[in-house]
């Protein structure tokens, strides 16, 4: 029996949760799970709360059999997972801010998302409460030594990028410690989704992180479908697969150029920028929106692809196929660029494994996890593709993973375009299980976005509304690695490392 199955069996199984098993466990099993996490027998996939209850999503170390453990905590306290397993620390701090559940013996009790600017404390806690006075000054983690100085960067940056504060402690040019402070783009999406109609909640999820809108929509849709027992028609899966891969393609193309641009190599950005723009325009022709926002909906896809759209997609795939190899050669042969990327910002494989870092961050450090393969969903079950993995863990490796994923996405898109299924693109709500009383039904889904695995868990309420919903961005497990990988590096290399991670601020802050 696998570790997760063993833990699930020791609690009271909640049948309403699909497709992952969920069990209500006691504090002993909870602590045991934390121990397994610390030993690396389990991977942390999510930690979120609701009033009086805390949930822990886990996957076995071999990426099989995901499960959710729930601990009832009527007194608002639960045993800290972060005390044993560092990746949970920020999740616990966020839970304390949003729901007001306190982790006992937590190693870090500072607020995380809450900057005391919301006007209320613990927004997701039914009892609510006003914000108690002005914020205490945020204590950054200490770094002591001779001739250390601090460099504060952000939250407002000189470029048009998302807001986040970075506090460097440096000795001259050498970074001794970096600590990020996030939460500036908290919009309260989960609170807004609670009690909202499913359609509105789906639109909210689509706006968690604009560059991953397809991934979020898909994860949300799959969670709703799992809760309701609805199976979308084949053509819906086909359309979703196309959109997800085009989103990955566009983002990777943009990232490859942007990383090079941070090393002042403008040429690459100019060329990949053109390619990315072509991809987005083809998407606008085919799906009616450049980023394909709100095009994936619970039950299927909101738009069908007409022959003109398919032709536009084919044309752009052909163009990328033609022009991309030249750019790869340009990257590979520009020694001044390689000098910057190779060996910079190294993430040790053990660390990537411990944090369960997904996407290119994990894959560049030897972690082969790919939701499309480990917990496969349609249409990927019927497609041939590779998951590139590298061991170096530096900026160069993260760039190469992106390059290889661009190729894989092109392959996937070509396979999909070659074999379009016919039929409706949306499940008939009357035919599915959605007509019954869905109150209390729970669904959970993990979807491979371009950054990594996006988790959505939700519980439906009465008359087609969402009772509670949790969205977890892959960046939660990547931001901490960024802080580690620049230690001992020079200050001027941070932007390059940061861009090679390209973590989401909005998806993280929600």
């Amino acid at each position, binding site marked *: 029996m696998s570790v997760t199955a063993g833990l699930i069996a020791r609690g009271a199984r909640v049948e309403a949760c699909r497709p992952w098993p969920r069990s209500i466990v006691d504090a002993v099993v909870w602590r045991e799970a934390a121990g397994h996490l610390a030993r690396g027998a389990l991977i942390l996939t999510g930690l979120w709360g609701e009033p009086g209850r805390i949930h822990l999503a886990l996957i076995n170390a071999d990426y099989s059999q995901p499960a959710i453990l729930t601990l009832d905590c009527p007194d608002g306290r639960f045993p800290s997972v972060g005390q044993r397993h560092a990746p949970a620390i920020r999740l616990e701090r966020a839970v304390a801010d949003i729901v007001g559940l306190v982790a006992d013996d937590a190693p870090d009790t500072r607020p995380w998302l809450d900057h005391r600017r919301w006007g209320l404390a613990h927004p997701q806690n039914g009892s609510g409460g006003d914000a108690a006075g002005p914020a205490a000054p945020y204590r950054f983690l200490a770094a002591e030594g001779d001739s250390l*100085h*601090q*460099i*504060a*960067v952000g939250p407002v*940056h*000189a*470029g048009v990028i998302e807001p986040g504060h970075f506090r460097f402690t440096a000795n*001259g*040019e050498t970074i001794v410690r970096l600590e990020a402070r996030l939460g500036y783009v908290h919009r309260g999406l989960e609170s807004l989704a609670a009690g909202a109609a499913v359609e509105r909640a789906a639109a909210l999820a689509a706006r968690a992180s604009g560059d991953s809108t397809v991934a979020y929509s898909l994860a949300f849709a799959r969670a709703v479908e799992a809760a309701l027992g609805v199976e979308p028609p084949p053509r819906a899966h086909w359309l979703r697969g196309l959109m997800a891969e085009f989103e990955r393609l566009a983002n990777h193309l943009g990232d490859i150029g942007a990383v*090079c641009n*941070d*090393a*002042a*190599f*403008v*040429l690459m*950005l*100019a*060329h990949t920028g*053109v390619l990315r723009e072509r991809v987005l325009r083809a998407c606008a022709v085919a799906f009616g929106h450049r980023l394909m926002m709100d095009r994936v909906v619970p039950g299927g896809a909101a738009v069908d692809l007409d022959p003109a759209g398919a032709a536009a997609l084919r044309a752009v795939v052909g163009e990328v196929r033609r022009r991309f190899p030249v750019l790869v050669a340009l990257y590979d042969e*520009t020694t*001044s*660029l390689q*000098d*910057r990327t190779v060996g910079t910002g190294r993430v040790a494989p053990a660390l990537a494994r411990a944090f369960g870092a997904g996407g290119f961050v994990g894959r560049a450090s030897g972690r082969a996890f790919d939701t499309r393969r480990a917990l496969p969903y349609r249409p990927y079950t019927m497609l041939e593709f590779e998951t590139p993995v590298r061991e170096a863990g530096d900026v160069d490796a993260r760039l190469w993973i992106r390059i290889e994923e661009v190729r894989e996405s092109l392959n996937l898109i070509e396979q999909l375009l070659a074999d379009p299924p016919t039929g409706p693109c949306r499940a008939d709500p009357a035919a599915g299980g959605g007509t019954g009383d869905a109150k209390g039904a729970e669904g959970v889904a993990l979807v491979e976005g371009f950054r990594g695995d996006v988790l959505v868990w939700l519980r439906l309420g009465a008359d087609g509304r969402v009772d509670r919903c949790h969205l977890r961005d892959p960046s939660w497990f990547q931001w901490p690695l960024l802080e580690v990988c620049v230690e001992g590096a*020079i*200050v*001027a*290399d*941070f*932007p390059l490392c940061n861009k090679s991670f390209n973590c989401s601020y909005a998806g993280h802050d929600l």
Partner: protein
Amino acid sequence: MCLIRDLAIQGAQMLLVLALAPLLTGWVRRVKARLTRRRGPPLLQPYRDLWRLMRKEVVLAENASWLFRAAPYLIFAATWVAAALVPTFATGLMFSWSADLIAIIALLGSARFFLALAGMDVGTAFGGIGSSREVMIASLAEPAMVMIVFSLALLAHSTQLSTVADFMRSPSVGLRVTLAMALGALLIVAVAENGRVPVDNPATHLELTMVHEAMVLEYSGRHLAVLELANFLKLLLYMSLIACVFVPWGLAPAGSGLLAPLLGLLAYGGKLAVGGTLLAVFETSVAKMRVFRAPEYLGVALMLALLGTLLLFVSRGGLR
């Protein structure tokens, strides 16, 4: 008559460099934009930017000292004078008898000194980082520059630019390895001194990677305009210097008629256009280097200049 003519040429030269400097930067930006498949800003955009900054209010940090306010003008003055000392279209400048290549280096050095101080004056982290990087680069670029001057001076028997230019045009110069080395070294130093890729990136928005931009980050309004103009002038200065020493053809000799200066002007414009284009092409084709690669990069310049000087001593007929 001669005095009036010299004065006129010197005056024209001073105004010319001031008027042309933004255009050169605009040209480099334009070519760079074209190379990266963008349309790019209009050539006259730098003038508009300066005009816009001139009319804007100056926002001063509360703890800014008099130095912070005075530095832009000191830097501008020193750079302008230095730029006016380099023959652009005519040799035999009036001022150049009183100030030679070493004076130019000293003027630029003083400008840099004040800029580094101003960067640290307000006490922000970025200014400090910028100043420390700038001084690190300068400590390597300046010796290389002095070495280059030595090797040129040994050849031309003068540190006076007009004389050097005249010598370089004379048949006695011949093909010399030393000159090639000095040119290589000067190009490397010029790229570093002007904060161009690969040493610094003038177009970046990443505060943590800036050198020059980090020092002027706290400046606004007319202060920033003056600093920007000084920076434009510096680029023009280095390009004129390279043109005057290594491609002196077209320079109107002292005491020539009216036609020669006009031809000199045309030639000068052509040289700047070619130089700006080459700079843009170079900048587009390389990535910025790590901060601590700069010593190695500038070390090459120092070594080249040093070897060039040594070669003069060991080669037959090197020194006469």
